[in-house]
């Protein structure tokens, strides 16, 4: 049994997000809209020693499988993350996140004067940069607080 399995017990079904950079687990939860009030069963391990990453976080959410949009946004703060879908204690799918070139409709532009924040029939659209993202409409850069702008 590996080290991290000792720290966070197995789940019956749901999603395990592994290889999150150390200290970023709470931001992953924010992306998933989990703040404890929804009643989900969630386990978090933070700053687990890791050979590849130095320290990593692991997030396990029971009875929930992530949407592609959620995975896209997680990739922005956790580019090395692996997403394991678990059903009846078995990992049925193991995916690395892929950083998309663009994210549509998942982030709100932090510029309150951006046309996408008005009642126009468009979704927000961001180009993914090496560091952070950029609004395709108003060019505003969003780096540190991506999780804060999840729609």
């Amino acid at each position, binding site marked *: 049994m590996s080290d991290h399995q000792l720290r966070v017990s197995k789940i019956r079904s749901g999603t395990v997000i592994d290889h999150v950079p150390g200290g970023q687990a709470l931001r992953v939860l924010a992306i998933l809209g989990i703040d404890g009030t929804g009643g989900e069963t969630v386990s978090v391990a933070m700053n687990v020693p890791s050979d590849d990453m130095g320290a990593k976080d692991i997030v396990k959410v029971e009875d929930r499988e992530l949407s592609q949009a959620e995975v896209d946004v997680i990739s922005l703060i956790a580019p090395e993350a692996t997403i394991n879908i678990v059903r009846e204690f078995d990992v049925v799918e193991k995916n690395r996140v892929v950083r998309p070139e663009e994210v549509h409709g998942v982030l709100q532009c932090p510029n309150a*004067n951006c*046309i996408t924040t008005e*009642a126009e029939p468009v979704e927000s659209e961001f180009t993914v940069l090496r560091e952070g993202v950029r609004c395709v409409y108003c060019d505003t850069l969003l780096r540190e607080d991506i999780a804060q702008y999840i729609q």
Partner: protein
Amino acid sequence: MRHDHLITATQLSRDDIEAVLDRAAEIADDPPEREAVLGLLFFEPSTRTKMSFDAAMKRLGGTTVDMGSVDSSSVKKGETLADTVRVVEGYADALVLRHPSEGAAEMASRFVDVPLVNAGDGAGQHPSQTLLDLYTIRENAGLDDLTVGIVGDLKYGRTVHSLASALTNFDARQHFISPESLQLPRSVRFDLHQEGAQVREHTDLDGILPELDVLYVTRIQRERFPDENEYRQVAGQYRITPETLDAAKDDLVVMHPLPRVDEISSDVDDLPQATYFEQAHNGVPVRMALLDMLLENAEDGAGGVSS
């Protein structure tokens, strides 16, 4: 220049810019015939830019239709911009849009098939102004081995954002002079950095003034400052007078996108360095060239091949 729309100066290559400026230089003598209709959509008052586009289209032999002021239009009834441009597209062969929100032109261009020119989107971009600025610089100082100082409100000044980005195509050193609270926004710095531009920022004009070939002055607006005293102090610090220019090169080119308030004192107007009225007049030939090329491109595109 093969673009469907003109939204931002960052989309323009050196070749694009030179093609428009070359066409502008010859267009007054031999204007092409463009019996097109230009739709003017100004969601913010800007008499000057609107008149300049209006004159340009008419001098090409075309005509214009004007949405009128926002107060009297359907916008007031809550129509979206996306709807407005889709309706007006049916009345015109090209559109010019001025709007208070950043990104408005980019969004609008996605809803129309006719060429759309961004005539200012909030604090974003104003690329046709940049083309006439570059035309003026080329005529008066040349676009090679150039040192440009841009002074004033660099944070909200859309003409500054467009000009800075376009200048990265040329051999130009750029100096940005402003109070700390009005420095270039992060997104513009990012673009300049990406382009490897030679950029320096200053809070003080005096130190850099003797090096400049071009001094581009912009207005610092009262409402950017919490109190009147601070505003007066800052505005005074960057005010250009004949005495200021004593320290500059004799052939310095002083520019301003106009309208000015008192950033440049009126006794500078008669000095040889004052180039801002010439700059304003250049708006017509440059916009004639721009509209001609966009319309020509749209015509070619209508044959089935689109760029």
